[in-house]
């Protein structure tokens, strides 16, 4: 059994005391004392309000916090929620914590939550990010009800975002996942999501955990496992999402845990994605997308400069990864002035696919391949920001839709280079 190696004796004892549950909410924490209080309060209120008759547990998988985060999670009393919102639970709401390691790793945290869910035979589970400052109690039923009442297996979120937030999602993760696996999932890498007990158990049994890539970015692997395993997926609109954790928005680590894991998953799922071509719509509870447009200051000049210097300095690295034609085109673009610079969608898609194929062939260290992609992504960001400076929500949506079509149109190119060109 997978959980034997994951669950400590003390945690196992706590789980045995809890007994079987219907609902499980997992929190992967690491030094989140600043934000975890309101999150726990919202989760408790959500459970008490929407699932008063269900047996429920909140599991905190902690990566060695030094700021007392686990105490805040386990110390919050159910009475706080009752007094605040005049709600009454008919069952005991357990709240337990475990430290899975001295160093944080989102993959290990998720594995701990999955193992606990399997042991407690939870039917519907959700994972909530401890730094979600915009969380509302309604997020809990929105993530869990499609599983407990409608028999879905994976519920991914849809957020209200600023039009320039989540650009890696809009320019790479969403279009590429959609083109490769044929599902219109807005957030294939989600920090909040719901999953059924059967999907959790199936994913826990996969050999994904033995690989280095499973330490971070396992969330996208779970989404891909649900798609390729033929599980029922849906999306649920949650509301606004604001990232307070600066480290998660650092580009290279973010690319490692999302793009790196996506490229890595392509290998194991090659038989599934190389044959399927049908694009399927995923049912969505609530609106499919919502974009806010307050003005933000972005240093586009810096993005352009970092693209140009990256293409110039990393030419020997790119020559191992990219085709001669793509590299020549990028070098030509890097010689253009800021005003004339434009990174077209087709070239961006070719670049991404060539990176994916090179990652598969391990032409150089895989981590170096992902790092080398960052300056090119900055170039694409520059173009996206420029093209959509005054765009409305619909225009942004059209722009993303066109990029998705480009990814779908060029999928045969990825198949061609996957095993072809050395």
């Amino acid at each position: 059994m997978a959980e034997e190696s994951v669950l400590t004796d003390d945690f196992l004892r706590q789980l045995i005391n809890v007994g079987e549950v219907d609902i499980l909410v997992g929190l992967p924490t690491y030094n989140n004392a600043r934000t975890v209080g309101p999150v726990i309060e919202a989760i408790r209120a959500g459970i008490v309000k929407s699932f008063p008759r269900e047996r429920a547990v909140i599991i905190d998988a902690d990566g060695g916090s030094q700021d007392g985060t686990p105490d805040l999670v386990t110390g919050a009393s159910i009475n706080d929620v009752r007094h605040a919102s005049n709600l009454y639970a008919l069952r005991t709401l357990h709240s337990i914590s475990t430290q899975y390691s001295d160093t944080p790793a989102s993959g290990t945290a998720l594995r701990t939550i999955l193992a606990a869910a399997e042991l407690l035979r939870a039917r519907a589970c959700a994972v909530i990010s401890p730094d979600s400052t915009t969380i509302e109690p309604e997020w809990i039923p929105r993530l869990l009800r499609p599983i407990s009442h409608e028999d879905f297996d994976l519920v991914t979120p849809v957020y209200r975002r600023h039009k320039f937030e989540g650009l890696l999602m809009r320019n790479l993760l969403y279009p590429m996942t959609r083109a490769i696996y044929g599902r219109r999932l807005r957030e294939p890498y989600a920090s909040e999501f719901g999953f059924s007990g059967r999907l959790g158990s199936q994913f826990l049994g996969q050999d994904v955990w033995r690989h280095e890539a499973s330490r971070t970015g396992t969330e996208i692997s779970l989404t891909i496992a649900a798609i390729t395993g033929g599980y029922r997926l849906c999306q649920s609109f949650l509301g606004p999402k604001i990232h307070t954790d600066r480290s998660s928005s650092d580009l290279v680590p973010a690319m490692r845990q999302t793009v790196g894991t996506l490229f890595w998953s392509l290998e194991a799922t090659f038989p599934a994605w190389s044959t399927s071509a049908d694009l399927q719509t995923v049912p969505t509870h609530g609106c499919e997308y919502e974009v806010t447009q307050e003005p933000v200051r972005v240093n586009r000049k810096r993005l352009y400069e970092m693209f140009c210097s990256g293409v110039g300095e990393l030419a020997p690295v790119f020559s191992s990864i990219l085709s001669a034609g793509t590299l020549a085109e990028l070098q030509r673009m890097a010689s253009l002035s800021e005003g004339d610079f434009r990174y077209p969608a087709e070239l961006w898609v070719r670049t991404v696919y060539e990176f994916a194929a090179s990652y598969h062939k391990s032409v150089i260290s895989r981590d170096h391949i992902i790092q080398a992609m960052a300056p090119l992504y900055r170039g694409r960001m520059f173009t996206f920001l420029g093209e959509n400076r005054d765009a409305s929500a619909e225009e942004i949506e059209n722009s993303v839709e066109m990029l998705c079509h480009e990814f779908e149109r060029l999928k045969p190119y990825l198949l061609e280079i996957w095993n072809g060109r050395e």
Partner: protein
Amino acid sequence: MREMIVSELTQAFQELARGFAHFLPRLMVMLIIAFLGWVIASLLKFILRSILRLAKFDKLSENAGASQLLNQAALPSSTELLSRFVFWVAWLGFILLGVSVLGIVGLQEHVSKFFLFLPRLFVSLFIFFFGLLAASFFSRAALLAAVNANLPAPRLLSISIRTIIIIFVLSMVFEELGLAEQTMLLAFGIVFGAMMLALSIAFGVGGRDLARQFLERRLARRKKEEREDELSPL
């Protein structure tokens, strides 16, 4: 007198014939060993070449930067070079084994020295190859990190790291081979020390004002950039 001369000559010829008769089988044995050695060395070369091609050794060597060095020196690919090297070492070993059968005084010692030297040669080659691989890996890692951190002169940093690692590897190789150990150690110490001193002088004394200005500019810019680039990629 005449009989004595004839007798001495006959004896000399008989001894020569006897010596030749003793030597001929040894020569034959040596030639057979050399021929067998050639066959075995060719077989080894063929097997090694096939294994290296299967293991895509040329690709590994390209990543290590060894292929670039070989191309510049107009040498064949690293797979071919290593196969040929093993062939010649194996065949030379067999030839020396054959020569030792001849029983030539003084040669035995050199033959045994050669065989004792072989493990050190292979260890040196091993250190050299993996040293190049490490130099290539770490210099590329530094280049990528510097580019993504927007540091000035990333390629200079990358080349410096590669150079330091290669110098270190070469000193290890020479030490393993036992060639000019003291000289190499001294040379390494001087080169490394000189580089560090040059860097210290350049940054600490020569570029004191420049370094201060750079740091001020850099820190000020970073604060500004953090405010301006608050877009989350996810």
